[in-house]
């Protein structure tokens, strides 16, 4: 429940549109993780995710007044903006930097933690790589629906397509991902389903 101390995203966005600096800071700190995670899953790169967050919130400064309450959630609206910026980042081929960047972070974690972290980081890097290698229309659907747990309706709003399209892309994306996991690194396979679970 939104109140004066905990205003809703919609209230913050309305205040941002009126030039409220504190509201901007509050929304940035509250929703930065959502944008970051989406961009990270889409790009496979922490560096690219940081850049996308920055670009999305710069765009928000200009576009805060264009948000239409009720058409989508603020998070969905932000991820819609993020989607465009992620595509531009990918077009600039920052992904060539990204995977090694991920590996470096994994290695840092390995150096700091015991062997358990090694296995987890290897799994994480491998799965991220497979997700980042999906064709973009399947990738963004899988990221929104399966990783970010958006409803089909909300995902359709973000992706600006029909709910049926979301369903079919999700089905195809999951099938592709599962197939690549079964044929991928051994860390991702189990005897039961072919996947780590």
């Amino acid at each position, binding site marked *: 429940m939104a109140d004066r101390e905990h205003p809703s995203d919609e209230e913050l966005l309305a205040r941002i549109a009126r*030039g409220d*600096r504190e509201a*901007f*800071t509050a929304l*940035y*700190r509250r929703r*930065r*993780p959502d944008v*970051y*995670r989406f961009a*990270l*899953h889409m790009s496979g790169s*922490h560096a690219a995710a*940081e850049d996308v*967050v*920055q*670009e*999305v*919130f*710069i*765009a928000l*400064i*200009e576009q805060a007044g264009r948000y239409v309450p009720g058409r989508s959630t603020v998070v969905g609206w932000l991820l819609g903006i993020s989607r465009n*910026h992620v595509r*531009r980042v990918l077009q*600039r081929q920052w992904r060539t930097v990204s995977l090694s960047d991920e590996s470096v972070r994994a290695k840092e974690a390995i150096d700091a933690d015991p062997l358990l972290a090694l296995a*987890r980081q290897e799994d*994480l890097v491998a*799965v*991220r790589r497979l*997700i980042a290698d999906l064709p973009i229309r399947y990738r963004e659907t*899988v990221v929104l629906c*399966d*990783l*970010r*747990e958006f409803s089909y309706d909300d995902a359709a709003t973000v992706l600006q397509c029909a709910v049926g399209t979301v369903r079919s892309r999700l089905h195809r994306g*999951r099938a592709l*991902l*599962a197939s690549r*996991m079964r044929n991928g690194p051994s860390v991702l396979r189990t005897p039961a*389903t*072919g*996947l*780590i*679970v």
Partner: protein
Amino acid sequence: MTQKDWENDRLHGDLVDLLQRIDRGTKVPPVDPAREAALLTAFDAARERPRSLAGRSHWLAIAATLILIGGAAAIWIATGGGFASAPRPDASAIAPASEPDESEFVVWPGASALPPLDNGQLVRMDLPAALLPSLGLFPPASDATVISADVLIGQDGLARAVRLMSITHNEVQQ
């Protein structure tokens, strides 16, 4: 339901479970104060813009005055009065009092492939000195690790150009 459908459902269920655990396990780094400061600078700049538009008539009056003064001076010179007969200083003898504070703008890598710049904002931010060569810029002679720079952000939020400021954090601290 066939055996294959059952296996597919189970496989997709496992996959979704795995993906959701990956998302929940994804650590988001803490807010970088420099990035947040850059955003707030951009926010302030955007908020200032309407005020500058409101004061546009003031600037138009100044511009008109300057044009009138310039025109009058040109006529004065053309008619042989005043400045035409004054001795001109030797251009080579004129030395700048000091080096300019700012470098020229250079195009941000990849920006030439972006849509044309309609409008934008100038955002001052700190760039790592090590980043400068990739931008086609030479780091200053000092051993500063962080360089203040003006980055021109286009209407789409993407960087278009950058110029370095001569004053660095290290120099300020010294």
